[in-house]
């Protein structure tokens, strides 16, 4: 099944985020090889150049590295992974807070909700 994309965000960014999430969740463990550009492109049903761009972004952040012509691998660097984890965390929580604020939900309401253990 082709990946689903929303209409507002650039597709390469959505691919980048998805692969990043799959690395952080352990679907692609540290120091293992990632699928090739072509495999990703077929699975996601997108242009291979778009996948290439997403992987280059991940590479420039140090989350994946190239091993010559063999392909790309997930980093084993714990610090890089932790940094990614915290930036994903702030993005997700930030998005949530933005929509909560726009609906007029107060900080106290959020805290009460969390304290009730409804997570």
């Amino acid at each position, binding site marked *: 099944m082709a990946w689903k994309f929303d*209409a507002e965000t650039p597709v390469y960014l959505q691919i980048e985020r998805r692969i990043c999430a799959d690395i952080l969740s352990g679907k692609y463990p540290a120091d293992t090889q990632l699928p090739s550009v072509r495999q990703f492109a077929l699975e996601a049903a*997108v*242009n291979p*150049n778009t996948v290439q761009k997403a992987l280059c972004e991940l590479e420039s952040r140090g989350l994946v590295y190239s091993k010559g012509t063999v392909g790309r691998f997930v980093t084993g660097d714990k610090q890089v992974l932790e940094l990614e984890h915290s930036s994903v965390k702030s993005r997700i929580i930030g998005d949530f807070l933005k929509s909560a604020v726009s609906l007029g939900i107060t900080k106290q309401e959020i805290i009460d909700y969390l304290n009730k253990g409804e997570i």
Partner: protein
Amino acid sequence: MYTLECNKLCKRYDKVRNVIDNLDLQIPEGKIVGLLGPNGCGKSTLIKMAAGLLQPTSGEILVCGQPVSEATNSLISYLPERTYFDSSMQVSQLIGFFEEFYPDFDRARTLHMLRDLGIDVNMRLKTLSKGTKEKVQLVMVMSRNARLYMLDEPIGGVDPAARDYILNTIVANYNPNATVLITTHLINDVEKLLDEFFFIGYGGAILRSGSADEVRESEGKSLDELFREEFRCSVNY
């Protein structure tokens, strides 16, 4: 060198207007490109000129740097908007026909794709449904190792599942030396495949071009949404 290049290209069918009016266009190699525009804006006319089926009224059109000729025709794999196959042929005869005609035809690839789509090679073309005929035609065209694929409305008549398969076929056959030119109205379906798009207005004018991701980045909307805005038809009751 561009895979397809038009310089001051004009085409007119009658004395009233130019269907293509002074078009300049460059399409590089290794790209999947969408030519998107409303009905009657000259997309098919452009493709037919590149395929050597129509003569430009003025201006030039170059394929891989050469003027359109027999030599450039052998570099192009063209999917016309209508089928031109002899309907009394069997699919297997058609395969033989293509094999004789095009040295770059890959029989194994054809058989593989036909099997995936559940099409029996012993069927006669006239017994196939419209959508199945279109699938056969697309399979034949994508089975060549061409430099330029020109697909005129490749997914218009097929069901959504086959559409996905066809689009996947385009991705799977992606080759950095080849360019794929697609015209379609089903922008939503092809958007994710395109490196670049061209919005063509009446008279073949390029109203806008770029990559779909650039549009998302700068305007936060998909190509489909942008198309609907750009070519909005006003309703007058």
